[in-house]
């Protein structure tokens, strides 16, 4: 089935990937202190399962997800837990576990190769992936095990591996596919087994011929008839989940539904490689490939870096800053988030870090003007929306108009902002309006909200009380032991 042409739009963006593709993936130095954020960027808080002062080893679990929608975190270095709490020196970063690296890289006993996955029932394979804390490395960080289990429950047919890295600057997946194509293919096989999918497709864009060759060779080497490679045109946002699935399968994910509802499952190629590495060595998700780039970086490159390494150190390893970097963002230039400070630590969600100078940003500075309804935004919208009409609805907070024109269907890719001749921050307005709509909805059910709030508060208070009591008991026991020894 051919992909539906009507949603082919998008933009051919100017690429900035070459700079970081000059060299192979370099291992980043391990940080002296690792700062593991409890919220890795998916908005899901994890609960610490280590205590201050406790010694952890490489790959030891340090924080546990309390629902299926979160993934466990593991120690990216071996050493002692220095503190757990709000990361004071980094504005807005939230809570973190800080581990002093003792440099030994001593491995956790659980850090062992898995039994041959082909002998494992799929359920157990999924459980091992869950224990490895593997999460979607494309940036969404949804736990891979949960996604695989849901796919299995729906008996999905088709796994699509997303190697369409469509944003300028980001090239960590390109580098990974070139250098570790075997892992990507192996990971795809494991995911097929875990999810029960009948076939898998690795999708890349046509601006990555070397990755395509490497994957082709790796596929030929395993000779798995279920797996295929498909090359898509390099158009942003080819890598957006729904757009990619439609381009590969010709199927559209219906309004209000999710990919498993139509028998599809998508995973990032980096996630697949992480699953393969977990199977091969037992290594949980404690590092990732990250692109360090932008005109403000001396030697742009791809790095294999530990989660929790301060960004300043990664940029230092890439030769430090050059020129006058003005904006620092992680992710792509179209959807990435600007960081106020380079003391932020690397999270699992960070596929790319760009230190941008005026040379990169020059065209972004423009006065906002009124919308002239030129419709350029509608021409590039991959969701088939009319952003100019949504903008009208946002200005008047007209909820029926916003529903008619599909505010809920906006994927926030930024294509409309990119082309808008009036320099209107459309996506930001849409995002704010969604928040405002949610708040209005929440206000309507304030009673429920208040109850949930109270329950959460109670639980946190109980947790805190329990941990205080444990510490108190520990201290008393130590004191008793000490006096017993002394006596």
């Amino acid at each position, binding site marked *: 089935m051919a992909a539906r042409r*009507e*949603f082919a739009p998008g*933009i051919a963006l100017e690429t900035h990937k070459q700079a970081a593709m000059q060299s192979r993936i370099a291992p980043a130095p391990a940080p002296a202190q690792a700062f593991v954020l409890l919220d890795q960027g998916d908005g899901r808080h994890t609960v610490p399962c280590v205590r201050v002062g406790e010694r952890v080893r490489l790959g030891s679990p340090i924080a546990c997800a309390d629902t299926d929608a979160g993934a466990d975190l593991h120690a990216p270095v071996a050493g002692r837990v220095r503190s757990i709490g709000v990361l004071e020196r980094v504005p807005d970063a939230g809570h973190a576990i800080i581990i002093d690296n003792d440099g030994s890289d001593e491995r956790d006993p659980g850090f062992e190769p898995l039994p041959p996955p082909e002998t494992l029932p799929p359920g157990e394979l999924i459980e091992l992936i869950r224990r490895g804390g593997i999460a979607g490395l494309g940036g969404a960080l949804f736990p891979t095990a949960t996604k695989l289990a849901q796919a299995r429950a729906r008996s999905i047919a088709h796994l699509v591996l997303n190697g369409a890295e469509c944003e300028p600057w980001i090239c960590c997946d390109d580098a990974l596919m070139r250098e570790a194509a075997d892992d990507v293919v192996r990971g795809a096989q494991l995911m097929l087994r875990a999810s029960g999918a009948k076939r898998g497709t690795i999708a890349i864009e046509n601006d990555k011929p070397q990755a395509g060759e490497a994957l082709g060779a790796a596929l030929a080497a395993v000779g798995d008839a279920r797996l295929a490679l498909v090359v898509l045109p390099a158009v942003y946002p080819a890598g957006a989940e729904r*757009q990619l699935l*439609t381009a590969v399968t010709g199927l559209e*994910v*219906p*309004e*209000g*539904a999710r990919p498993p509802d139509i028998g599809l499952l998508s995973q990032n190629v980096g996630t697949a490689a992480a699953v393969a590495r977990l199977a091969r060595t037992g290594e949980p998700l404690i590092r990732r490939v990250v692109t360090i780039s932008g005109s403000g970086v001396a030697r742009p490159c791809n790095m294999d870096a530990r989660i929790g390494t301060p960004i300043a150190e990664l940029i230092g390893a890439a030769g430090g*800053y050059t020129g006058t*970097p*003005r*904006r*620092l*963002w992680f*992710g*792509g*230039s*179209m*959807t990435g*988030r*600007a*960081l*106020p*400070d*380079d003391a932020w630590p690397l999270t699992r969600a960070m596929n790319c870090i760009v230190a*941008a100078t005026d040379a*990169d*940003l*020059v*065209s*972004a500075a*423009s*006065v906002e*003007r*009124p*919308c*002239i*309804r*030129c*419709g350029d935004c*509608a*021409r590039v919208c*991959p*969701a*088939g*929306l*009319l952003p100019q*009409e949504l903008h009208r609805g946002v200005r008047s907070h007209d909820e029926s108009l916003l529903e008619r*024109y599909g505010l809920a*269907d906006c994927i926030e890719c930024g294509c409309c*902002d*990119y082309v*808008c*001749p*009036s320099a209107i*921050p459309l*996506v*930001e307005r849409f995002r704010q309006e969604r928040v405002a709509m949610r708040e209005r909805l929440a206000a309507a059910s304030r009673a429920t909200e208040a109850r949930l709030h109270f329950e959460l508060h109670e639980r946190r208070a109980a947790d805190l009380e329990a941990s205080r009591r444990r510490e108190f008991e520990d201290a008393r026991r130590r004191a008793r032991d000490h006096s017993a020894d002394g006596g």
Partner: protein
Amino acid sequence: MRFETAPAPHVVAGFTVPRVMFPVLLALVPVAMAHVAVLGPGLLLQLAVAAPVALGCEAAALAVRRRAIEPALRDGSVLVTAALLALCLPPYLPWWLTALGTAVAVLLGKHIYGGLGYNPFNPAMVGYAVLLISFPVAMTRWPPLGADLDWATLARVTVHSFYTGALPADLSWDAWTGATALDALRTGLRQRLTMQEIRAGAPFDAIGAAGFVWLNLAALAGGLFLLWRGIARWQIPAAVLAGLAIPAAIGHALDPGTHPGALFHLLAGSTMLCAFFIATDPVSAATSDRGRLVYGAGIGFLTWIIRRWGSYPDGVAFAVLLMNLAVPLIDRYTIPRIYGHAPD
């Protein structure tokens, strides 16, 4: 190290409204040159009044509304309005009427609704329509389009009329005005003449409307330039031309005695100016691609109706304004299908 923060996207194409408007002005140069060659230097005089009046009204309106003046003056949109209005006016029109029409276009056509982006009607056509209804005689005086026209005397007549509203004492309007092809068509049909008889009159040449053929070809060239540069899109121009040509061709096939053919209509009056420059004003047009096809076809069809049966010679201005009125309705029923939604 600390950095500025801003919402994504962090890099944009840098394509701005001024960069849309100034190529439009550039694309009007061929039709302006043809205008001067065929109809005398009147256009230059009209522009010399319309442009400063437009800028002045824009600045004054923004000042009264307490809005930033400078970015609006620099976006070029008000100059496009002035240029389009000037191109539609007869070259003899006295300067105060030009000034009045321009002020109406900018103030009542645009700023009364909130300025750029909020005007439901095409401002230039609002100005034109007000002048046409209020001053029908002055607005329908066009130079004669004979082959033996003396351009130097035409220039003298034009300048005199522009400054005084009258002709030099030694000349009379009868000698220095002539019917355009569309005028001749309208009056001829009213007198129950056949097309052959009407065509025998002066303002027709081999293809159609004498003189205006060149204006239309020049406007077409400018319009194709905009399409080629990606400034304009094909939907509205194509729909306007099809909406005019198809009924004209059908009418001509059924009754060639009272219907000129499609080619005549395409190259008469301000057809091409309308298709590529007036109807394409995005603010007052329908906004989806499908909506623009409907909108453009409506303008073409109404133009044909008004030319054939209406009491005004060229139907373009009223066709545009009528379809402006229909835009909210068109927009409501031409929403494209959203990804993942079932077709309506």
